[in-house]
């Protein structure tokens, strides 16, 4: 008979047995017993953030750059409610996360006690699953189950809410191997009959396109390798969503660039005109499809997704395959090779010729300026001076995020951390902190905007405390740029509350935090300033002053179809956005 331990000891033991090395958190009354246990051990390192939202985004950055679950520890009440944004973000982007929240003692639950919130009630719609642990006897099983649910199937955040008396109560520990779930059994292998049909359909395609997404990244490095092999074998063009960047190398000639609202002309037209679309781990998000009834009207659509509820949600598909990307691609490749399938070379040559005419449109070209720094130029230079397998990019949300996606190029998965689904401004700094914790020797850069970055600026203090040399590269145009762009295009240029008034001096702000501040205002000083940033040992806030009213193009206006894109040259033209389009976000 094994000895008992306290609930708080069980938490730490379970974290160790799950292989957790780092947790991101913030203490408070309802988690003091767990913090006391953290103090008395060395296996799990706690990173003290400055706000619970920062803990969740740091855990997301950690998870997305490693493939391991991110772990968060916060207190009850405001600790838990502050974590809600990051939990929702992780749910939308399928990031594995386990968030442990303290709760008031069980006898106080429901009494409006100090720092009480109905955490499982509040987080039910923004987690993959959540638990309120009412007895320490259930704690080991629930903790291991939480990791299992968070990391398998379509990954997501799981909350474990632990009342303070349960943290003190004695119970027997149970090792993770003993956990078996009654109901939760995600489908991993794809239906082989569907895979046969898919191979048949793919082999007969005349205008095919691969459309890959974040599911490839989540499936692990092997999925990216298999995707690369399959794309090479077929000779087909490939595009990817924002979340999928890096799964396929951008230097490859078969790469069309990102698709969607700010995707490339060639990617979107290939999607519109294709006859067979192979969706691998993407979910036909509205940023991708544009106007639904005009979305890729003449194609047969194959959809590989681990989540059955992603199938036929927005777009009716012809051939759904529910399963994990790596497993399905492995089977598909095996079938493809065993049948010695040859794609239609003649048709493909014609298709590529058509794509080349779109590529020649050079949709990402922009007018250079030798007096002021264009934001596109800033990202291009940043890319040229920092590219490499040991560089990790995070972003905030807005124009700078899209320019980062367009002009920074990724050759490997897990190097690109961005808030895609929820679009959370303030994601970038804490995510960079999380990435740097996981990869202490890497170059971690948050490509930011001056508005977003202020939402979680306090996490620079975390970076300074733990000597995490993150680089915050702010494209400072003194506007909430994407808001301003939409106001220009849709609301008569009335810039309602989108000007970044009363900005801090970012160089002085960096110094106040004990970091280094660098500013660049002219194109000819940019390269040296970036080099200085790279050479600086500690965290840096780089204030890159860019042209103020640059728009992010190409753009599919809301409610428009893929073949109805706005390109940079159209700037200044009056665009017609339908009433149906105006109500879209």
């Amino acid at each position, binding site marked *: 008979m094994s000895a008992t331990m306290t609930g708080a000891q069980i938490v730490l033991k379970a974290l160790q047995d799950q292989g957790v090395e780092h947790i991101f958190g913030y203490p408070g009354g309802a988690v003091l017993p767990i913090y006391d246990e953290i103090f008395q051990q060395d296996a799990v390192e706690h990173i003290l953030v400055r706000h619970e939202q920062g803990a969740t985004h740091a855990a997301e950055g950690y998870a997305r750059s490693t493939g391991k679950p991110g772990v968060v520890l916060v207190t009850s009440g405001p600790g838990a409610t502050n974590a809600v944004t990051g939990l929702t973000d992780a749910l939308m982007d399928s990031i594995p996360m386990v968030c442990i929240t303290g709760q008031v003692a069980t006898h106080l639950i429901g009494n409006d006690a100090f720092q009480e919130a109905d955490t*499982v*009630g509040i987080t*039910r*719609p923004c987690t*993959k*699953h959540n638990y*309120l642990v*009412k007895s320490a006897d259930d704690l080991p099983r629930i903790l291991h189950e939480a990791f299992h*649910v968070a990391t398998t*199937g*379509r990954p997501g955040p799981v909350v474990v809410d632990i009342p303070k008396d349960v943290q003190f109560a004695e119970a027997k520990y149970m090792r993770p191997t003993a956990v078996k779930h*009654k*109901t*939760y059994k995600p489908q991993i292998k794809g239906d082989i009959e569907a895979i046969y049909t898919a191979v048949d359909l793919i082999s007969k395609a005349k205008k095919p396109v691969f459309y890959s997404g974040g599911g490839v990244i989540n499936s692990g490095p092997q999925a990216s390798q298999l995707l690369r092999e399959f794309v090479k074998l077929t000779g087909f063009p490939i595009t990817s969503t924002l979340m999928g960047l890096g799964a396929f190398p951008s230097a490859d000639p078969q790469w069309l660039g990102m698709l969607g609202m700010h995707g490339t002309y060639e990617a979107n037209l290939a999607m519109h005109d294709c006859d067979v679309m192979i969706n691998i781990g993407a979910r036909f998000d509205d940023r991708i499809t544009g106007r639904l009834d005009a979305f890729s009207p003449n194609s047969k659509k194959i959809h590989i997704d681990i*989540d*059955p*509820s992603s*199938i*036929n*949600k927005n777009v*009716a598909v012809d051939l759904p395959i529910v399963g994990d990307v790596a497993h399905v691609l492995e089977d598909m490749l095996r079938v493809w090779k065993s049948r010695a399938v040859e794609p239609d070379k003649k048709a493909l040559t014609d298709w590529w010729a058509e794509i080349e005419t779109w590529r020649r449109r050079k949709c990402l070209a922009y007018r250079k300026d030798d007096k002021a720094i264009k934001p596109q130029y800033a990202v291009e230079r940043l890319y040229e001076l920092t590219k490499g397998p040991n560089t990790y990019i995070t972003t905030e949300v807005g124009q700078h995020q899209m320019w980062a996606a367009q002009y920074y190029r990724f050759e490997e998965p897990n190097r690109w951390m961005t808030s895609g689904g929820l679009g959370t401004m303030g994601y970038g700094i804490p995510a960079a902190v999380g990435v740097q914790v996981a990869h202490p020797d890497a170059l971690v850069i948050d490509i930011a905007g001056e508005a977003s970055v202020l939402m979680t600026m306090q996490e620079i203090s975390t970076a300074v405390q733990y000597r995490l040399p993150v680089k915050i590269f702010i494209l400072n145009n003194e506007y909430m740029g994407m808001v301003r762009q939409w106001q220009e295009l849709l609301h008569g240029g009335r810039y309602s509350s989108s000007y970044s008034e009363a900005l801090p001096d970012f160089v002085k702000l960096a110094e106040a935090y004990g970091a280094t501040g660098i500013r660049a205002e002219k194109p000819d000083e940019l390269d040296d300033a970036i080099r200085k940033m790279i050479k600086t040992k500690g965290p840096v806030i780089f204030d890159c002053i860019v042209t103020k009213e640059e728009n992010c193009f190409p753009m599919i206006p809301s409610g428009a179809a893929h073949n109805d894109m706005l390109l940079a040259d159209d700037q200044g033209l009056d665009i017609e956005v339908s009433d149906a389009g105006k109500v879209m976000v």
Partner: protein
Amino acid sequence: MQDQINTHTISVLVDNEAGVLARVIGLFSGRGYNIDSLTVAEVDDGAHTSRITVVTTGTPMVIEQIKAQLGRLVPVHRVVDLTVETDSVERELALIKVSGKGEARVEALRMSEAFRARVVDATPDSFVFELTGRTGKIDAFIGLMRPLGLKEVSRTGVAAIARGAEAM
């Protein structure tokens, strides 16, 4: 065809744990699905499973989504669309209070016999009828009671089960 709105009866077998009903209801409200009726009770106290029967309406794509979304909730064992996958039996129980005197009272009692409703409570000027049947039958009976002094209705919502030897 794709836009046609149909009514479906869906059976969901769940682990009877705290919050499971909130998960199901939250899913419907959060995603804007309709609930026409919802019934829930523990059906196996040994296995701690409950059965939720939900009657919902939507286009074929929405119904497919509802089933997929229900299926991915962690405590859900099985989801069966009784309208599509099987031939099924559906029943609802209603308690219907009618008050009145004289001819109306006699007519209400006469109607209850025609519908095979049972009188479960009676006072000199009221009846409570218990009626079991398909939703349409109960709707019809309530309609008939309205001019006869209908006071109050309590309905269980639909319980449903597939015909034949197979269990869900």
